């Protein structure tokens, strides 16, 4: 179920990215939706199993990098296929950015919304730089495609970096909130222990637990 939510988020993300209007004033930057979805999974790592999520089995709190890496891999392939970039570039960038975010998530800011804005801006800032570097490198090598039609235009690149950073800062808190709500509603994520469960949250999870007696506490 968690994978289905992730896949849905990635597919919707790429559609939004492609449909978004563009402007020269932001260097033709597209809203960094997919990287924001990957970042969500980096900041909210999954427990190894649902039972462990409840602390019923094994070591509670142990997390798995599988959702983050899956999101990076699938998101990267979707992005590269649809945007015409050499296949694999975005997957690598998403994975590196995700792992870095996962590593530093507790060390930067304590406030959640501030963290999301700062991380969104950082992602937006670093994505064009990373893609630019990858295009300059891969574009000339036979690893991905013999020759990409990319030409460095420094002015456009600066505008793109600024535009992408602004869009990342605005988008990431929204995407984080929406995905969090969706996961809470479906039940693939449990609410904070300090917060009472709201009506309707976790309906699918309860349905699943009722079907499988082994999962009942």
């Amino acid at each position, binding site marked *: 179920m968690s994978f289905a939510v992730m896949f849905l988020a990635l597919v919707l993300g790429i559609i939004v990215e492609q449909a978004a209007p563009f402007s020269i004033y932001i260097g033709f930057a597209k809203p960094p939706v997919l990287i924001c979805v990957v970042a969500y999974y980096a900041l909210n790592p999954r427990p190894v199993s649902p039972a462990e999520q409840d602390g019923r089995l094994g070591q509670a709190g142990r997390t798995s990098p599988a959702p983050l890496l899956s999101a990076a*891999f699938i998101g990267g392939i979707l992005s590269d296929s649809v945007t015409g970039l050499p296949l694999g570039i975005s997957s690598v960038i998403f994975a590196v950015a995700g792992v870095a975010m996962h590593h530093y998530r507790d060390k930067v800011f304590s406030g959640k919304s501030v963290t999301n804005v700062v991380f969104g801006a950082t992602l937006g800032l670093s994505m064009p730089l990373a893609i630019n570097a990858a295009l300059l490198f891969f574009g000339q090598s036979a690893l991905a495609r013999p020759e990409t039609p990319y030409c460095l235009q420094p002015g456009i690149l600066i505008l793109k970096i600024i535009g992408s950073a602004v869009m990342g800062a605005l988008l990431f808190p929204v995407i984080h909130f929406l995905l969090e709500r969706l996961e809470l509603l479906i039940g693939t994520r449990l609410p904070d222990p300090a917060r009472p469960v709201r009506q309707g949250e976790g309906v699918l999870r309860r349905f699943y637990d009722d079907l499988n007696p082994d999962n009942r506490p």
Partner: protein
Amino acid sequence: MKRNIIFFVFFLLAMGILFSLPEKQTDALSGSVRDAFVVQQTGLRRLREWFRAVFSDKFELLLENRRLRIQNEKLRNEIRGYQPLQEENQELRALLKLKADSGCQLLSAELIVHDVNGWWQMIRIDKGAADGVRPDLPVISPEGLLGQTVEVSQHTADVLLLTNPKLKVAGRIGRADIFGIVHGQGVNFQGGAGYRMDFMLKDAEVSRADEVVTSGLGGVYPAGLVIGYVENVQTDASGLFQCADINPAADFKALDIVFVVLPEKSQAAPDDKSGERRIAPERSRPGAGKRSTGGRP
């Protein structure tokens, strides 16, 4: 910890496989993903157009309709004027026993994504290999040359625009046989685009507003497609040739319907009869580009 390492190893392995796949396989993979998104992209584009139509002033449409009717009448008159010339041309060709032009087909296509990735100037159209489109085919708008197809999937094709500096076209000043290489100069901060024509002979007489057309050399573009109009001319850095800044004939900001120039009838889409019309590519002969271009500078 051990489990995490296994996941990372799996990821690296998957990336290694992805990078080592042959170009054909990666093209097939990305092509099928692109095809899967055609419906959504077309739907979103239609939705956007519908919103625009609903909220825009209908008076504007009436004015445009009137303007198009006038233009239509003018063009019909113009065609009537060309008919005797065409007949005369056919008679002379028959007398000289010249082989008739093979002819090209125009396949109409709708734009589904205006700026595909934001990294290089590329658009996506809703016609692909299933319609007879293949890589390296010229794409034109009613005003002039736009670029060429690069990536083609079953139902989509990506068109690299001529504004991209890496795309080069053999050009010719239509008024005289002055040849050169035309390439894009990217996009400026006003969002406008421009071309440059290099390697024109130093003593050639090139003047402002001269029409630049494809020369037909190189084999990709048929001769006579309008590229743009000369803005200014100067001697290049080496001092051996002239170069010129070119104003594009095509309006890249207002693209909606474009045409793919298919080389032969047999390669055209069997089911797209409505969007096709025949053109005769001009040979590289003196005066080939002298035709009127509809009020452009």
